[in-house]
């Protein structure tokens, strides 16, 4: 493909970013027409002396799948983990800026972090089922919420497992340990657990990076099924995956959000040369 024929804005931002400069994000117009679930404004985060996120401004559209891509260490996982404040567990983290979930602030002294996290589901890089039965794993969010009614728990368990497309495989072994399942099954179980409490947003931190291609396929199909029902933010290293599963793609570099737009545009017709370079594999 002839690079010269593509539209682009001539600049070499990446070197300047590396030198410490910050540019406003190239946000595509299409995003302004979406209904935002999450609004991030002027968000900065640092681990001790090292700043990891610089002036992030973005919205996460409701009911859509948003992919965060970028080279290793660009801060996409940090941004994701800031949304449910799981970064707070590290004592060195300092935050400056604002996030709003459905119009309510995420970072405010009055916010009950535990209640906030109950409104979100998270799926981690490595499957992390708890050392208990499949059933107990799925209903864990309800258990810690104090739900006791067996009928409710049974219903939620089946619905979540069906939602995570793992019901058929597990319905006969609900009360066996979850640790005996394969990696792919474990990850789908973790997704079932994440959607058990019907979260407003589902955060996925490279959910397929520890899985084989077949298991990856199943997870991607599952994300496609969940699209529309849930708002999903997914961090991925895999460009094809981002292209396949997401509606919107955000390209990050060294803690800055560089370009953000509809996936088809970002992949086929990015506004910035740097995005083009990354997506075609010139660097990163």
């Amino acid at each position, binding site marked *: 493909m002839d690079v010269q024929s593509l539209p682009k804005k001539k600049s070499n931002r990446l070197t300047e970013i590396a030198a410490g400069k910050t540019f406003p994000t190239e946000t595509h117009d299409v995003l302004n027409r979406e209904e935002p679930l999450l609004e991030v404004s002027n968000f900065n985060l640092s681990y001790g002396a090292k700043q990891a996120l610089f002036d992030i401004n973005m919205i996460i559209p409701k009911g859509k799948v948003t992919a965060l891509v970028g080279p290793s260490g660009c801060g996409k996982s940090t941004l994701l983990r800031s949304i449910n404040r*799981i970064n707070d567990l590290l*004592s060195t983290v300092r935050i400056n800026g604002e996030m709003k979930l459905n119009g309510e602030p995420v970072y405010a002294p009055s916010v009950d972090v535990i209640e906030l996290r109950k409104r979100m589901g998270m799926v981690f890089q490595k*499957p*992390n089922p*708890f050392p208990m039965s499949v059933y107990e794993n799925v209903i864990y969010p309800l258990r*810690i919420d104090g739900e006791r009614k067996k009928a409710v728990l049974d219903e939620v368990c089946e619905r979540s497992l069906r939602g995570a497309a793992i019901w058929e495989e597990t319905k006969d072994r609900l009360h066996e340990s979850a640790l005996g399942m394969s990696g792919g099954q474990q990850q789908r179980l973790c997704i079932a*657990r994440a959607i058990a409490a019907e979260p407003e947003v589902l955060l996925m931190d490279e959910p397929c990076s520890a899985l084989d291609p077949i298991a990856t396929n199943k997870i991607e199909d599952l994300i496609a099924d969940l699209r529309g029902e849930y708002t999903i933010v997914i961090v991925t290293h895999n460009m094809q995956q981002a292209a396949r599963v997401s509606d919107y793609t955000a390209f990050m570099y060294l803690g800055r959000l560089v370009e953000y737009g509809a996936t088809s545009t970002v992949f086929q017709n990015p506004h910035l040369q740097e995005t083009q370079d990354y997506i075609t594999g010139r660097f990163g």
Partner: protein
Amino acid sequence: MSFQSLENSAPARRKRAKVSLFAQGEPMIWLTGGGLAIALSMIIGLLALIFYHGINTLWPVAVLQFQTLDGSLYMGEITRAESFRSNDAEVRVLQRRLVRTGNFEFSGEHFIWINDHDVQAMTQPEWAVVIERTAWGRFYGFPESFTLAGETVAITPEAAWEKFGQYHGAVSERREKIRELETKEVGRVNRRLEKSRLALRAVEMSKGLNRPAWQSEHEKFLETEKSVTKEFKTLQEKIGLLRAENSRYVLNLKTAQGKAVAMPLEAIVRAYPANQLSTLGKAGIYFSRWQEFLFNDPREANSEGGVFPAIFGTVIMTLLMSLAVVPFGVMAALYLREYAQPGVIVSAVRISINNLAGVPSIVFGVFGLGFFCYLIGASIDELFFASSLPNPTFGKGGILWASLTLALLTLPVVIVSTEEALAAVPNSMREGSYACGGSKWQTIKRIVLPRAMPGIMTGMILAMARGAGEVAPLMLVGAVKLAPELPVDSVEPFVHAERSFMHLGFHIYDLGFQSQNSEAAKPMVFTTTLLLIVLIFLLNLLAVRLRTRLRRKFVSTAF
């Protein structure tokens, strides 16, 4: 430059230095393997020694009669043989044997050395009988006749022995009955009187002497005293009757030196004609001795009889200790690992805990005596048992204070291993729980603790092994030479946490170093040590099984 030319132009390959011996790894295999082999052989050697002696002690051996050159006769069992240097004109290496001759009331000795070159004749008399008695140690002699209520009913060894076999069982039963009456029934009566006396004393302390309340209580006391005296009398009569019945049976014996001895059957615990026994008969004696050893109280300053109170005391103390140390250790470790901000203070605390494990155990004993017995125990006495003062109830050594002292001693082990177990719980699990909206405590309770449970159990196993084998601090806080009253029994309130107790480890020390009949006690040291090791092994086995089950349930290597 092409590869071809590079190859051509390259100088002859530099000769490689000889491969270092160490680089091959073989010497290291020998060194490490050798270290392991030495450690193992020492442990196996020790265990084998204990096992060999412990197993053999109770086996009945032949009774030999020695006639020495000066004409004296000795009869007994050979305990061991050794060589020694004689001190006469020419120094020679001679052999001698230690013979257990018993009959302490005549000879004043339990054992005697007999030089091999002094022996004129050595025989195995057919009717040599070994008698284990309730007092004075063993007796070796020949049965002569049997007396029943003053009348001689048998005059040959065979007939006398037959009569002995006929009556001994019933006599032993009556002796047990007497013992039970003397300890349990008389004890019960005495406790009633004591309770009444304490009630009177309590009234005296609160209301004062000769007040109306005291008067009525005093009358009650006098009444109790009267009924107790009556009850006591009936008991004495009962015991007297049994004694009289038992004293009718007497076995007449003759010692090797020809001295006639009339031995009441009541004084005989066990008797057997050692030289007539078949292997099966010996096995019978062997197992009956083991049974006595495991399930009876000690006799003869602990050198004979059983060690049941010591086994019981050891097990109860170890369990109490685990009950005390595990919750505290786990709580401390949880705070250090899960809640405390890592920093200088936490590091200092951690180092201090590790150092605590190196404090000599006797120091813990002194602390336990001062803090638990004399401070806490004395305060409890003053608050709740004031009427029995100056006799201390909790203000002295007891099984509760001993357990708590050992719990302190083993606390570092539990904290360190629990901390390691907590550190080994993957962070991803904690994050998973937080992401589901779990609070810190919910995460710890539902995810971290179950997952760390096998590691915590390991700490408990180590603590139990350490605690059960510890002796020095126990001497100060409650282990005693003889305590036939168990800390748990059928007398209310059933658990007597203030009682002193017997402990196998202390029993070993007492047998080995405090016994006046040390030669007789020595084999029992091995047997008791064997028992202690087996006991610790069993306790550990139990804990290990529990841990394996937990591990299967909570930790898996899948994925």
